């Protein structure tokens, strides 16, 4: 074996590498924890864990200064697998360690997968309301709806990122091109009549001329939503139809007619439609007597299956989610102003079972190894 390859192999199977990687991961986790004060949990995950390097901005440039979660996790995985492949010996004395490390591999891979594929949505329901979609917590889309047929909406959804990048969209479903003119990642909106000093609006159509959108600082806090705004120009074959303002704070779509059809424009959270719908029958919210400490929240919902029929009634409450059709519904929050509106967290995570199996394996392995050590220790003392 050439010396270089031997050196590389020795590095990857060494416990020294393991210790260094563990130390690096501690620093990474600690740094990320402190970073949450300013960045919020979501920002920290992107910057520290779902990345190969942690970048620090110095002036114009971003420098990689520290290995990120993917790099450390990946190297740990390589280290673990190669060490075991290299030193493989069958025997019960190491069986606990084997099971533990197999579980660890599953845990690391499972978390990687769920980091990549997990999707989070929210469903907000008033009592008596029925919905067949949940909404993204962070992502928005510009929905252009052909509402000519009152029974049926034909939707073209443009992701927020395309508005941000100024990507011009042409779709066979639309008789016009969509040209993003301006985009604010977070903003407030006021009536133009209330803010006489606002700069002139690029909007010429719909509600735009009446409104002033003021850019605001992007928030990373977990409980605050950003409210993006954009000005989009629609350009038909004969020229511009005008410029509209779209804003997540405008509760209703703006309507206009073009080419003999009725259109609606709406910047809204990305929707995830499901073939069934859910009705909120009752929301309950108890507090401990004489305090404002919440004791329990629960939502009694009815699942209405696509084939019709009565459906079934389910009680969703804290620590007791509903798992249905690959989605899981959790009692997340409620509207304190009315006490009649529930907010359910909706999660799609196909790898949710992986950590359960992994943790079971690791715990089992640790217990076996611990008992083996304990037995040896006791035998050694008896002899002594």
């Amino acid at each position: 074996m050439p010396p270089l390859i031997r050196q590389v192999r020795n590095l990857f199977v060494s416990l020294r590498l393991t210790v260094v990687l563990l130390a690096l991961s501690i620093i990474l986790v600690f740094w990320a924890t402190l970073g949450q004060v300013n960045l919020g949990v979501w920002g920290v995950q992107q910057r520290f864990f779902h990345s190969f390097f942690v970048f620090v901005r110095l002036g114009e440039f971003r420098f990689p200064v520290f290995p990120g979660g993917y790099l450390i996790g990946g190297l740990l995985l390589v280290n673990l697998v190669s060490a075991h492949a290299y030193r493989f010996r069958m025997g019960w004395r190491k069986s606990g360690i084997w099971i533990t490390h197999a579980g660890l591999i599953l845990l690391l891979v499972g978390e990687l997968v769920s980091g990549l594929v997990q999707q989070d949505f929210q469903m907000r329901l008033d009592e008596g309301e029925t919905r067949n979609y949940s909404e993204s917590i962070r992502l928005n889309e510009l929905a252009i709806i052909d509402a000519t047929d009152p029974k049926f909406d034909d939707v073209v959804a443009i992701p927020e990122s395309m508005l941000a990048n100024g990507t011009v969209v042409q779709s066979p479903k639309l008789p016009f091109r969509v040209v993003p003119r301006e985009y604010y990642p977070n903003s407030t909106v006021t009536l133009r009549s209330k803010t006489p000093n606002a700069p002139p609006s690029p909007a010429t159509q719909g509600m735009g001329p009446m409104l002033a959108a003021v850019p605001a600082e992007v928030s990373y806090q977990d409980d605050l939503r950003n409210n993006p705004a954009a000005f989009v120009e629609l350009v038909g074959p004969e020229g511009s139809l005008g410029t509209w303002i779209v804003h997540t704070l405008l509760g209703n779509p703006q309507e206009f007619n073009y080419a003999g059809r009725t259109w609606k424009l709406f910047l809204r959270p990305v929707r995830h439609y499901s073939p069934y719908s859910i009705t909120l029958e009752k929301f309950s919210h108890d507090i401990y007597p004489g305090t404002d400490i919440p004791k329990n929240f629960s939502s009694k919902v009815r699942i209405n299956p696509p084939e019709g029929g009565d459906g079934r009634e389910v009680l969703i409450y804290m620590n007791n989610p509903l798992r249905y059709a690959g989605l899981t519904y959790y009692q997340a929050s409620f509207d304190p102003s009315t006490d009649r509106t529930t907010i359910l967290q909706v999660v799609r995570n196909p790898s949710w079972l992986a950590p359960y199996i992994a943790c079971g394996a690791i715990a089992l392995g640790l217990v076996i190894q611990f008992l083996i050590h304990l037995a040896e220790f006791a035998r050694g003392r008896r002899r002594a």
Partner: protein
Amino acid sequence: MRQRIPFFVVAVAAICVLLGLAPHPGGEPDAVQAFGRLPVLAEGRIKPLDSVARSTLLVIQGYQDVTTPEKKELTPDEWLLDVLFVPEKADTYRIFYVDNPDILSLVGTNKADLSIQYMSFNELAPHLAEIEAQEKLAEPVEPQTRTRFQSSVVQLYGNLSHYLRLRRSLEPEGSKDFLGELLHLQETLSDGVEAVRAKEAGKPHDEAKATAIIDEGQRFIGMAESTDLLAIPPDEDDPDPNAWHNSGHALLETFGKGYVNPSVLAYAGMGYSWRSNEPSSFEHIVKIYGSSLEKRFGRQVRKARVETIFNAAQPFYAGMWIFLAAFLCAVLSWLKWPETARVSAWGLVALGWAVTTAGIATRMWLEGRPPVTNLYSSALFIGWGSVALCLVLEATYRNAIGTAAAGMIGFATLLIAHHLALAGDTLEMMRAVLDSNFWLGTHVVVVTTGYASTFLAGILAVIYILRGVFTRTLDKATADALARMVYGIVCFATLFSFVGTTLGGIWADQSWGRFWGWDPKENGALIIVIWNALILHARWGGLVKQRGLMCLAVFGNIVTSWSWFGTNMLGIGLHSYGFTEAAFWWLSAFIATQLALIAIANLPLARWRSFRA
């Protein structure tokens, strides 16, 4: 004779503990104790008035006994009686702790008086408006970013309103003879109500009678709005056993029902006899009222009685001193009297452990919960778990190292708990998301055991370093034994911190839909797991020897203290309960001492007093 000394030492300590359970000679009279046992509903649970008095005093004053301006010592129950029924006297007691010079200048004390730290309500009352104005300015600021003055003024204002709400909970502001007023109301009630009805219907009526009733109603509304102590039990026919009322609310029902609520009358009667210093009639009313409650709320009354005894016995406070004594005995055994002092230390640790076990078990029974529900109980449990492990170590090795570590950890954790108790009632209600005895009993208990064992490994390493560097007592056999102990405990800690952390992940997956969310407390627990794994791998790889292992274990103390307290100080995330500013400085100091110990451990062996050939 020598062999009997340890029995004697432990017996003396045990008698001291038992004395805490017995009523103190010359302490408060039976009737006052019976008053303290009366159950009320406050902060979401039914508890004795004694607990209300004690937790209020801990929050406002920082300790439980009150000294009057005449230098008379009052028990918490006597103080509460004065606050409720003789407020003009209670207002003169200096119980409000004012520690900030800016606040002292705000309340107008001149320079010479700046040493005054405790003030009475009467001394603060003229400045209520300024205090309130400053509080309104400081309150919107995030707690973590408040200046010292801002947090002090928010706290002082909170304490003042806490006191006022308590003062107004049974009798209205400024009433001189509430019992007389209620009896008068009872007599004139039917005429008065009739007059009000006639007035509302626009018919001829007795204006004076109607006004009197309307004024009473206004006064009761004021009472109902200004307190949160629910002292009046639900009516006999009320289907909801938790529908306790405050006094004003119960009085407002007088007009509909046609009679004054008998519980309110009973409290007014107690107030009258306490004010006019008639102990026999006070005792009589408390007894009658207490036994009437016992018939209807037998279980709660029994619980309240046990809680009162528990309050007075202060098992954790007693345990703290027992552990300190045990630690001193253990150290003594290394320096002199190896056998006598070692066995005494062992006995004291066992006694301290028994006392804390009884205390934790009582808390669990009172609360109907697993042992760890908040930061306070985590301190109790970390101490308890470490001491249990130490007892096993000492039974195995018999070299006083286990008892020394037990004494140190037991004392330190109970001291921490003692200070955490200043935040208020420690048997608080669980927020909805935490309201799961299964997960509190598994995740929280296991992860707390992981914390406890990581600390224990660190403390054993501290003993190794201190004995090695500063004494000649660390011979090779002891050093090897310590190294084996630390290694074994680190293995144990890895197991428990890992299992506890992943159980937390599973709980999070059950309640929020993500196994891991990078929340600060989760990260803290993860760091402990990784650190323990790092120690084990470093040892297996031969990267560290005995001293290196000790240094890593000491650093484990830093890691664990960060996870336990530091993560709460960030003020973010789902677990951010129990932030205290003072804790920050203690945590920093603790980390500094641990770093210093690691530095000392790295002195060349020639500088160690042990191991020198």
